[in-house]
């Protein structure tokens, strides 16, 4: 895979097809864990890690196990089970061998199993890349896209943690306090991302 293609996929996933702000995936952690910058960064790091790992496992499963046996319809069940098992496994391994990393990422891992961005990116990759070229190159593209989606998630979380720090102290109308004002500010942040439309095409096109 060329460097150009790599950057084109990553930057598109971060800015144009941002998982949180443009595609509405992973909204629950975006609204729930974005109050503090520390927890926003920790959660995003765990998401990037699990996204890459989940793609690395589910993509070959779809290609070598499900598709040749005509079991494509089992995708949903197999993927969610693989992701759940994987998260558990990662937690156990981290706890045993890298306690320092477990201390910083561990708390976020169980929350990730039910994060729709993870299952979303696995299914998205299969839908958009599988069968378009030889397995090796599509697999690399799928992993790249997962990295980009994870980084996009991180960027949205970090940006929004900053925005939220300021909203908390503001005097919003009573019925807008809490969730509604948070969502309205997310809308404004989402508008900002429209500015990137076409930029990537112009740079790499």
């Amino acid at each position, binding site marked *: 895979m060329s460097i150009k293609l790599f950057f084109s996929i990553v930057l598109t996933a971060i800015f144009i097809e941002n998982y949180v702000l443009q595609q509405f*995936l992973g909204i629950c952690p975006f*609204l729930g864990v974005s109050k503090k910058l520390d927890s926003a960064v920790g959660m995003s790091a765990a998401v990037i890690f699990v996204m890459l790992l989940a793609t690395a496992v589910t993509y070959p499963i779809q290609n070598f196990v499900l598709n040749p046996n005509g079991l494509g*319809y089992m995708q949903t069940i197999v993927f*969610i089970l693989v992701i*759940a098992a994987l998260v558990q496994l990662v937690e156990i391994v981290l706890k045993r061998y890298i306690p320092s990393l477990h201390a910083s990422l561990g708390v976020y891992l169980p*929350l990730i199993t039910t994060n729709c961005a993870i299952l979303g990116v696995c299914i998205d990759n299969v839908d958009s890349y599988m069968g378009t070229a030889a397995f090796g190159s599509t697999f690399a593209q799928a992993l790249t896209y997962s990295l980009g989606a994870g980084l996009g998630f991180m960027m949205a979380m970090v940006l929004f943690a900053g925005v939220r720090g300021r909203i908390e102290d503001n005097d919003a109308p009573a019925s807008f306090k809490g969730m509604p004002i948070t969502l309205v500010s997310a809308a404004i942040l989402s508008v900002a991302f429209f500015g990137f439309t076409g930029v990537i095409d112009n740079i790499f096109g």
Partner: protein
Amino acid sequence: MSEKSKVGILTNGIIKENPVLVLVLGTCPTLATTTQASNAFGMGAAATAVLLCSNIFVSILRKTIPDKVRIPCYIVLIASFVTIVQMVLHAFAYSVYDALGLFLPLIVVNCIILGRAEAFANKNSVVDSALDAIGMGIGFTLTLFCMASIREIFGNGTWFGMEIPVLKDNHISILTMAPGGFFVFGCLIAAVNKFFVNKPKKEFGCEGCPAAAACGGRNAALEAKGAVAQ
């Protein structure tokens, strides 16, 4: 249980504990599939079907499933029903299947379904669980439908594909795009807070999150840790 409480269970999910607007669960499909009223209706119906089946089966199996592995068991059950719904829609309503796309398999990780299995169906009888599922399903569908109607009518000037005379020429197309989703959703929650919920909205945190059971309240510990780190 008396007749009144059965009605109570059924209507609970529609306004008082509306899964989307009051409990703030299942936000992803709410935002993503409400660009058109027909899509929202399809999403609501699909999620309701899965919720009904999963609640009934979780309730039937609540004495059989060991407590320690209940979450994986629920996920397998839910994933099976989602697959069935996917296949049914693929065969009989391809346009809906196509429009919902990625969000159809993602019903598996919809918090409402796992949340109701965990919070209601594993403690209550089959009939009550089914009623709860229907109530919650109607609440979810109605909310999606309201939101999609607002977004489609003002954003696109149509409703179920029918053109609306004046609005068709003066539509606010940003409402059908991503920012409009967040904005309309925020305003709807504010409206519900204003008119139906007297007490101020509680903070979004562990108490409203169905994953709290799975993570054992570790998120709360994490928030506290964040506070300490600050």
